[in-house]
């Protein structure tokens, strides 16, 4: 069953158009990875789904965001509020600053169930302790009486995940959930999310720029570049036979068993800024395969059963 279906999403802030033509779909019990370099519009996509654009002065200019058969782009702010934290949970990038420094952990997590599940604070606390337990937090009852500054980053990230899960959402969006954490904790958090998807039949959107995380945990991948979706498909297909040169370059950048003296691969150049996206295919200035047409006509991006790619010359790496 399709939980979230985004079609041809376009976002504008005043005159600039940082996002256009983004399409993807997530099913229940499935993990979609959204990858791309910084500035490629990953977080903006998450914000659009959460309906947070008006807060920062943006608006959706085209396309639809369909959640469980309901078009979110036409939803009122009040109705959206019930979805946020209720049926759609968001895990933000920075656990260090995502908790109110003046409130104990317990009440902060309780508030979600009180708000969305109409529980009394006492009922919510029982639930909170239960959720903290499933997230493998030691002594959940004690943790409830702690303040955020008394906890480590990995613990705080688990609390943030607990808050996102407190109202039993159907869709979870994790926006680079491990960026601020050290490597060992990163692996734990990713595994935790993976388990949650399987146990609770969640639909998970995992936003990351770590291709190896995608390879381990995701079912499907959406590759984004300069505010556009460039390739979409199953993890197997994307990693075995990437069609878009940008995807190929990203996969080529995963470090693997380097011997001494060997250089890490990277993609030359940088992501263009929103103010001057190139004409035609946005990737053509950095593409090794670019022809004249790439600088003029933007390639089509159409989803098919096998996946989709936005390139004039798709195919295996030369």
């Amino acid at each position, binding site marked *: 069953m399709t939980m979230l279906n985004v079609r041809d999403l376009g976002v504008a802030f005043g005159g600039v158009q940082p996002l256009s033509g983004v399409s993807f779909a997530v099913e229940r019990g499935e993990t979609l990875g959204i990858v791309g370099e910084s500035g490629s519009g990953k977080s903006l996509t998450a914000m659009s789904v959460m309906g947070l654009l008006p807060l920062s002065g943006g608006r959706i200019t085209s396309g639809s965001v369909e959640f469980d058969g309901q078009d979110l782009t036409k939803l009122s702010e009040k109705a959206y*509020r019930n979805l*946020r*934290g*209720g049926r759609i949970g968001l895990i933000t990038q920075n656990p260090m600053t995502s908790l109110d420094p003046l409130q104990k952990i317990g009440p902060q997590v309780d508030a979600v169930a009180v708000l969305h599940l109409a529980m009394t604070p006492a009922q919510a606390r029982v639930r909170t302790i239960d959720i903290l337990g499933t997230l493998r937090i030691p002594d959940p009852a004690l943790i409830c009486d702690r303040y955020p500054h008394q906890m480590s980053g990995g613990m705080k990230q688990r609390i943030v995940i607990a808050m996102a899960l407190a109202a039993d959402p159907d869709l979870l969006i994790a926006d680079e959930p491990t960026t601020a954490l050290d490597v060992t904790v990163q692996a734990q958090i990713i595994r935790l999310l993976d388990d949650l998807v399987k146990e609770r039949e969640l639909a998970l959107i995992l936003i990351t720029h770590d291709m190896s995380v995608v390879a381990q945990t995701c079912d499907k991948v959406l590759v984004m570049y300069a505010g556009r979706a460039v390739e979409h498909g199953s993890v197997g297909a994307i990693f075995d036979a990437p069609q878009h040169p940008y995807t190929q370059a990203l996969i080529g950048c995963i470090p693997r068993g380097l011997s001494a003296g060997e250089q890490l691969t990277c993609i030359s150049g940088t992501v263009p800024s929103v103010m001057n996206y190139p004409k035609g295919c946005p990737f053509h200035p950095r593409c090794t395969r670019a022809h004249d047409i790439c600088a003029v006509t933007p390639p089509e991006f159409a989803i098919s059963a096998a996946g989709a790619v936005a390139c004039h010359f798709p195919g295996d790496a030369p």
Partner: protein
Amino acid sequence: MTMSDNPRRSLAARSFHAFGRMNVSRAFRSVVGKIAGGFIILLVLIAVFAPWIAPFDFAAQNLANNNAPPAWPHLLGTDEFGRDVLSRVIYGARTSLSVSATAIALSVSVGMTLGAAAGYFGGMFERAVMTVVDLTWSFPDILIALIFVAILGPGLTSTMFAIAIAYLAQFTRLTRAQIVRLKRETFIEATINLGAKPSHILLRHLMPNAIAPVIVVGMLAIGDGIVLEATLGFFGLGAQPPTPSWGAMMSSGTAQLFLSPWVIIFPGIVVAVTVIAVNLFGDELIRALDIRDRLREA
């Protein structure tokens, strides 16, 4: 299925609980904090229990014994009407402290509400509020007091409103600056992502995080308020006879400055010491609540 299940009162009560975590008692840890805080508490107790502490009736005249120098039983002497200066200073603490504290409390509550609303909602509302508030800041305190005296007549009510208006801008601006800064914090964004209503965000998350600097500035403003009350009293715009007020006492003392200096000296000393104590305690509060940075940003 929302917060409306809990009565609004309980939301406010729980908001207050969060404020309570800011540990004001830590200001008493240092020697300075103990002395200054102790003095303020002593002064408040004296004001509250004035009828039991004062050796004489503050209004009882004894023209046969006027302008008497400090001696038993009039420890601080008597004034031109033979009234006991010590008793009048003790009763004056009631006037000075209550007028200043009430005025600042009024100013803080109105200022915080306006500032929080302006900072949170922004736009034209913010501009309108801030323009009006800044306008009140451009008038000298005495002039504001004169406006109220002209409307309400001289007295403590006018003094109170004058002090409240004089400090309104400060609290409004401070709160607005805090809210504007906090609004962009990740945890507020996270709260929005969890589906919280604006009232919940404002009362439960923004206000508790914004209040610490306001407490400190409010404390310091009470000191200033005492001076302003004394000033207005000195000019005859504040407390009217026979109500004792430190400022009014000094005012009447000027006539006999060389004949009986104790009438003006003792209230003056008490005003000075009180203001110093309040300021020192305010500094200790800044340290105790650890908000130096937040004040600087505001």
